[in-house]
């Protein structure tokens, strides 16, 4: 916390005559300048006042002043016949300050020793709003709503109006600004009442790129025009519709433009009235639609999902190839494909192609061989058959020999295994038997 360079006046305090509660000295002239913060009134309450009474408080007195103007002059004692005692009534300053002047004469003829006075003061909030007029008499303090606050006040305006820079008066609001919601309603100031004069209202509808705005004017449309109804000239009052990369269009007359597609994600509306004429005003509801992308073409041996009639901004498509086919893009295989409709109405990736898969050369079989039974180039669904070099090797009993190029690019047998068979040596069976006939 910073210590303030100048401390604010206190909200309350006490003031007493010299030597109180002892009798005050003679021949005294003392002044107190009391103050509370701006926006408050100062209320002074006496807890005791015992000053030598005299007519008009001629000898000893306590004078209360505001801006050199005497508000009261006190002397005497409570319930005394002489003097002027404040009693229990507090004294309220017109402003936030008061001056007290305590004066005593040279003598005190009475045997009674007067004690002087003791008082406390406090800040009391001013209800500025209850003041009938500001000081300059220019009208109500707030032209519409006034809210009292401690030490101050503030003004506010009804819906459709906005506070002027003077912070007191309200003016009809254009309701302009930026409209970035996906849909909304705009209307001329005060609609359906006639538009005020001297308007220069700007409305900007600006939604996220990828969405396009459509304006839908209500039937109740009237902007002062010159010329015929069919060919109005928007000379003095107009509503100008500006779409990027297009010529601005001024609207006026009594015929509603109705539905107005803009094909843009931003639209600016400028409503102008001069200081004469009459425009009943206008109102419109705007909506937004997602930008449309072209429907993807057919992918041979594959399919595009999801299958929509139309595709819009942020729609995703995927391409999946039929079983046995692989995704190829720009000559290279890709694992998956997904493309999004962009905010410019174009797909972010061009469509891939589906090419048939290839199981590659079948694994060579040691002491055996492999031959193609059907298909070629090792493509999907090609069939090969393994064999062993007979009679020195044979397939292990039960081993399968036919393998088909499967969708996972492996040669698989009818048991779905991709392990090739083994050629087992044939033992103990010479091809040339020892023969002899001699006994």
């Amino acid at each position: 916390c910073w210590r303030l360079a100048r401390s604010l006046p206190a909200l309350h305090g006490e003031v007493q005559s010299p030597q109180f509660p002892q009798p005050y000295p003679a021949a005294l002239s003392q002044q107190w300048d009391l103050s509370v913060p701006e926006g408050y009134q100062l209320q002074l309450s006496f807890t005791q006042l015992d000053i030598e009474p005299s007519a008009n408080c001629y000898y000893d007195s306590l004078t209360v002043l505001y801006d050199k103007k005497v508000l009261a002059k006190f002397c005497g004692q409570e319930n005394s016949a002489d003097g002027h005692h404040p009693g229990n009534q507090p004294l309220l300053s017109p402003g936030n300050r008061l001056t007290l002047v305590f004066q005593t004469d040279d003598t005190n003829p009475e045997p009674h020793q007067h004690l002087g006075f003791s008082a406390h003061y406090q800040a009391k909030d001013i209800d500025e709003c209850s003041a009938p007029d500001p000081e300059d008499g220019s009208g109500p303090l707030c032209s519409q709503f006034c809210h009292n606050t401690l030490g101050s006040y503030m003004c506010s305006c009804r819906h459709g109006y906005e506070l002027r820079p003077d912070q007191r008066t309200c003016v009809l609001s254009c309701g302009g600004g930026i409209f970035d919601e996906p849909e909304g309603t705009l209307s001329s100031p005060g609609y359906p009442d006639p538009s005020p004069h001297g308007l220069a209202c700007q409305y900007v509808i600006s939604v996220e790129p990828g969405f396009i705005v459509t304006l839908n004017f209500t039937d109740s449309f009237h902007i002062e025009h010159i010329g015929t109804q069919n060919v109005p000239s928007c000379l003095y009052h107009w509503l100008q519709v500006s779409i990027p990369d297009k010529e601005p269009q001024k609207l006026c007359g009594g015929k509603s433009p109705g539905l107005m597609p803009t094909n843009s994600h931003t639209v600016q509306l400028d409503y102008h009235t001069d200081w004469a004429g009459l425009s009943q005003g206008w109102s419109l509801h705007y909506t937004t639609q997602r930008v449309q992308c072209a429907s993807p073409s057919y992918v041979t041996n594959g399919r595009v999902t999801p299958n929509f009639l139309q595709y819009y901004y942020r729609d995703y498509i995927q391409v999946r190839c039929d079983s046995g086919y692989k995704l190829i893009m720009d000559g290279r295989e890709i694992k998956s494909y997904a493309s999004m409709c962009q905010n410019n109405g174009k797909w972010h990736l061009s469509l891939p192609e589906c090419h048939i898969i290839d199981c590659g050369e079948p694994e060579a079989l040691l002491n055996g061989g492999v031959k193609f039974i059907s298909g070629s180039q090792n493509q999907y669904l090609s069939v090969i058959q393994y064999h062993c070099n007979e009679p020195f090797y044979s397939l292990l009993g039960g081993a399968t020999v036919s393998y088909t190029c499967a969708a996972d690019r492996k040669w698989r047998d009818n048991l779905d295994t991709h392990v090739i068979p083994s050629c087992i040596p044939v033992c103990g069976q010479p091809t040339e038997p020892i023969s002899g006939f001699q006994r």
Partner: protein
Amino acid sequence: IMGGDKAPDKTIPWQVMLSVDGSRGGAIVIGDRWIMTAAHNLVQQGTPVLKEKLRVFVGDNDAEKLAKLTPLGVASLHPHPEYNNPDDANYNHDIALIKLQQSLTFHAAIMPLCLPPEGATYTSGQIGMVSGFGIKEHDIIANELRYIRLPVVGEDKCQDSVKKAKAATPITRIPLLTDNMFCAGVPEGGKDSCMGDSGGAYVLKDDSTKRFWAAGIVSWGVGCGQSGRYGVYTRVAKYIGWINKTMEDN
């Protein structure tokens, strides 16, 4: 092989010829990376033979032609761990495996021999066949692979033969005949395996599958082809567990 015949080409395609410092031995192809032989071919006087000194030849019945071929690369030698014969008197567990560096490709001249079938039996009198490049008649080493058909000899008969040999040569330590061995041969002599054949196969034929299987490995004998004496062979059926484990572990 004494009293046998020359084996025509490709008739005994599992035959392997081993050579260590000029001494010849036989062995058997049992897989595309494994060869089986007698342990005493790989452990001589209690000392293991270096694998670099072992030359392994396959694919021909002519020893001279074989010796000109490039020997098969040997990856490792695996004599049976319980074979312990420093004094040439204990041929128990006379079996070993040789692992090759490269796989063999089988064809008509190279083919593996089957291992004993489950529950293999050695029936006395059953005719088997033994082959090798070892000594034939008149102490002449065979240049071409020879074979002979010999019957399995009953255990009692074989034990008697060994006992008689012991009795006849009291100062010579005749090896013991154990359950891990069996005998084959004819009592009248003249037909037998001999030096240079050891490690080769004594094969029996399975009647149902018509396949030859390795019943024995040429191991030892008292002399060769002598009357009343038989050749002693390692009983391979006893070692199926060790063979499979050794191949799996290596």
